[in-house]
């Protein structure tokens, strides 16, 4: 992985686990978040061990061009002029709190369904240019309820499936540049949403023992970034311990 750099959007939870895995594999890392992005202790330790360069930045995603405009400087700081991988994991704020649709206000809908799509779209729109020179890879991580739905989580399911359709569209557009776009959809428990145990989203159908962990999700992302995954684009890896098993 020498000389490779990955940019991860989302610095906590799954984002942290993915960042850690990519650094452990020897990549340099740019870690962005809408909030102040810090590096976890283990990330710093692993980076010191591998000699990876790690750049962190707070990048607002609310304004369309902020992310695009921030990229050149972030790449320079990381010692690169293009990206090998971009992983988007940003979970919306407060996304896993169950709320019946009929009681949602316009503001809640905007915050829970529209804003997350806008944030993802901002990153997707800016991704082609830095990925093209190295025939890089884009991986979008959204919860698997995009595929299955879940009661009282309509805004999250809607936003996640919107981003999945936009990512597939990007996969079609960017294939000629050698850029691949793939998706990883973990179950909600990989996001730490333990309060959803026993609710509609939890059908207890995973066949592998134990819960899905952030490290499992990071492994799936690493698979999609492996050279052996070159022929995969527009695909979705469902990381749910074998609950869904479709298509």
């Amino acid at each position: 992985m020498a000389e490779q750099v990955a940019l991860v959007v989302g610095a906590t939870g799954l984002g942290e686990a993915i960042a850690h895995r990519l650094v452990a594999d020897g990549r340099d890392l740019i870690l962005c978040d809408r909030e102040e992005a810090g590096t976890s202790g283990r990330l710093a330790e692993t980076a010191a061990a591998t000699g990876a360069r790690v750049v962190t930045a707070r990048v607002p995603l609310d304004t369309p061009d902020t992310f695009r405009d921030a990229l050149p400087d972030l790449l320079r700081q990381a010692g690169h002029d293009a990206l090998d991988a971009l992983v988007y994991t940003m979970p919306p704020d407060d996304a896993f709190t169950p709320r019946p649709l009929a009681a949602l206000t316009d503001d809640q809908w905007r915050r829970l369904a529209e804003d997350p799509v806008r944030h993802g779209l901002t990153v997707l729109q800016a991704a082609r240019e830095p990925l093209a020179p190295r025939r890089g890879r884009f991986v979008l991580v959204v919860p698997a309820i995009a595929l299955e739905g879940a009661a009282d989580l309509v805004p999250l399911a809607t936003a996640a499936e919107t981003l999945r359709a936009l990512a597939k569209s990007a996969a079609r557009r960017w294939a000629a540049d050698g850029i691949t776009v793939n998706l990883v959809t973990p179950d909600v428990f990989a996001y730490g949403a333990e309060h959803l145990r026993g609710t509609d989203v939890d059908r207890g159908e995973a066949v592998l023992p134990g819960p899905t962990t952030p490290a499992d999700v990071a492994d799936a992302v690493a698979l999609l970034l492996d050279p052996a995954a070159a022929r995969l684009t527009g695909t979705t890896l469902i990381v749910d311990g074998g609950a869904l098993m479709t298509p």
Partner: protein
Amino acid sequence: MTEHVALVTGAAAGLGRGIALALAAAGSTVVVTARRLAAGAEVADEIAARGGTAWATTCDVTSAESVRAAIEATAARFGRLDAVVHNATSRRSGEPVDLEHADPALWREHADVSLTGSFTVARAAYPLLRATEGALLLLTSPAGMRGSANLSFYAGVKGAQRGFVKALAREWGPTGVRVNGLAPLAVTPALAGAFEADPTMEGRIADKVPMRRVGDPETDIGAPAVFLCGPASRYVTGQTLIVNGGRDTFL
């Protein structure tokens, strides 16, 4: 269907008109809604001329207030609502989008009608649909499942509606209200215009359809829509029915 009141958004032309005509032919009282009242009234008149029952009212699905008003007017006039078909799409749905550089305002236009519009329509209709154990039907598209290189924003909002349908079907299941999607291929006025501009286009599309033709909004799409709006589909929820002559078989 008797005693069945169905409201259709974007019903002045194309798929919305075809579905409204089919619902009326099946015995529904159809509330024909459109942004412009005159356009909706033409379809309502057409239904009346064929012996059906219809009433037109204005509804701009990008305005929660307008949606609420249309639903309230329906309740006041007919006292019930059994089915809502959210068919309206942005006028710019068929425009190719430069995904990497498109203005966020263009995304907004798509999202206001299809993404947020689905929410405001569902929220406003819920009390009435609950009373009748009715049905909500969203018009989506295979583009939302496959993605689209050129119509990427259209694909995005049509994907949005798929996630919405599945989640809301699970949420509303216990109430008996069903939520489904319908993904058609049909000659709408927009597509007819494109065929006129590019005479080989219809053939190119039809070649990818096992049934070798592009569907008709009323005769091909209408009946499946009636099925998903009425009691015959009483045990069907959270599904997307693809009605496109076998073009997509992956579901």
